[in-house]
């Protein structure tokens, strides 16, 4: 059988593994991205 979605399968497996890794380390992709974006847009804001 010819595989017609050659990029999709490795991409999907990578996504699944990233989710597993993030879960294992207690990361939240949403909050990490939001936090980084917030810090990027507001460079003067510092942690106390």
């Amino acid at each position, binding site marked *: 059988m010819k*595989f*017609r*979605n050659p990029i*999709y*399968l490795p*991409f*999907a*497996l990578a*996504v*699944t593994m*990233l*989710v*597993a890794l*993030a*879960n*294992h*380390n*207690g*990361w*939240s*992709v*949403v*909050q*990490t991205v939001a936090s980084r974006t917030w810090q990027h847009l507001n460079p003067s804001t510092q*942690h*106390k």
Partner: protein
Amino acid sequence: MVVRHDVNVEAIGQMAALPPDLSPLQLGTRGEFEGLAFTLLGRVRLAYDEGSWNEWFALFGDNRYGWVVESQGFFMVSFEYAPPDGCVAAEDATEGRIIELAGQAYRVTDRKETVCLGGEGELPVACPPGRKATSVDLTGPKTAFANLEYSDTGTRLFLGRHAVFDELKFSNLRPVPGWSEDAGEPTHHATTALNCPKCGAVVILRAAGLTMSATCGSCGSLLDTATPDLQLIREAQARQRVQPRLPLGRRGILFGVNYEVIGFQHVKDEYSGWSEYLLFNPWQGFVWLVNYGGHWTFVRRLLELPEVDEEGIFSKVAYARFQGEHYRIFAASKVATDYVVGEFYWKVAVGMPANVTDFVAPPRILSREAYPGLTEQTWSQGEYVESAIIQQAFNVDPPLPEPTGVYLNQPNPYAEKGRQLKWLVPLLVLALLVVQALTAVHAARKRVLSDAFLYRAGGTNSATVSQPFVIDGGKQAVDFTLQAPVDNNWLELDVDVVDADTQLAVASFVQGIEYYHGYDDGYWSEGNATQHRLVPGVPPGKYRLVIDASADPGIGEMPYTVTVLRDVPVWSNFWIGLGLLIVYPLYCWVRAYNFERARWLDSDFSPYSSSSSDDD
């Protein structure tokens, strides 16, 4: 010539010389049919109004005599049987009639008046040139074939089945001039040159003996090539309107077979026109290439008749079924040839309308063609071919244009991807679910702090420090549950998670707690007295919370509690992963849907249209 009466052979003298043809068979050719070897002993050549063919008399390995009929690259192997008592008369054998022969139902597909052009070798009956008969062809289940021949000598019945060249395992074949390497110059085309009776120019026949009409390259007159002197069928067309993209005489290897372009016709229906190229190979016979809008379809005539839902032919759900595959009706229209050039195996009738019904199951198409006034109904099957393959095969200059639009049997690239994704996506989503489920099951969800505080308005230092708590294990997500008895007011907590040893904040967040409700055309409420906040990736350690509270100006004092659960599952990762997994399949499915809509735009039977052709 010799006439063979069973085992008695009777010589009856010489017959007229057969016209030349490009048949690869000859007397003495051996073959195999259903495990039985056979040898060709004799041949008769028969003609009718629209074409001619060879019938080879053969001796089979079980000492039976039979016939190998060779017509347009197809073969029918049959044996003679006694016709049934009360066999249908020739004039009653009309197209579509079902006749039972040897216990099997056969359908009449063709009835024609034939004339013998000549014969050679050993034959069971005398076949002098000019001998006339009525020939009725019938098809049975699968490739079963029957023929009833009515002549002065009585009625003869032949039963057998269709076959293709490769299946019959021929040997001792005749070298075909211009095609076989041992038959002369391999690059020299097998051609016969005759003169146009209209203008006198040389007319080249590329499949002499197999074709019935050709056009004069000089004056464009349509000529009858079945007659030795090229009788004029019709004078030149007013002017050449269509230039074939594949030049006549050009050879190219398609699907492993070397074909030569010998004919071209332009066909049109009520709305549009398309080009049809007749390709010829002496062993494989005739095939077609159909070209429309840069799209190409390779077409073969069918040996086996598809089944059609005749009752529903004008409904939106009519199907043809062939070899287990369903073909949906796409078009039913009257078409006519409006321009021809080259050579054809029938007498081309320019302007003569034909009823054509197309059924599609991309990349394949089934076409049924019937001419008013002719009983014959022909079926053909086509398969979409990329234009690059045609370009590579025939090496034409200028190169073939890129296809435009969506063609009726063009494979839908997104549908093919989508079909694969249909089973792949559920598997991948299941894998993601398993990953998330394992995370959720193994999450400790352990309460490490539950502390109560009191907010006081106007305090000099509103910051409060919690009891210390320990996060052990690895990095993990921590859930903070903040609760306050807010009632049409609000409390806001600015929380720092501070390492008890280094006094550095590892995380900070601001979380409001508000709850409002009332009556305004009914009861309403918004907000919640309990709020959750997830802090991801907290490293192990001993922590305290430093909380700076602020509140609605109307609040003087308000108690609130903070509960901390360590090692909680993070569901947002799962939802993001799920979204990423289905974005591409959704894209493919939408593109596939749009592709199909575009395909069916030109159809009166579109499954995507709510108005039917009946409304027109």
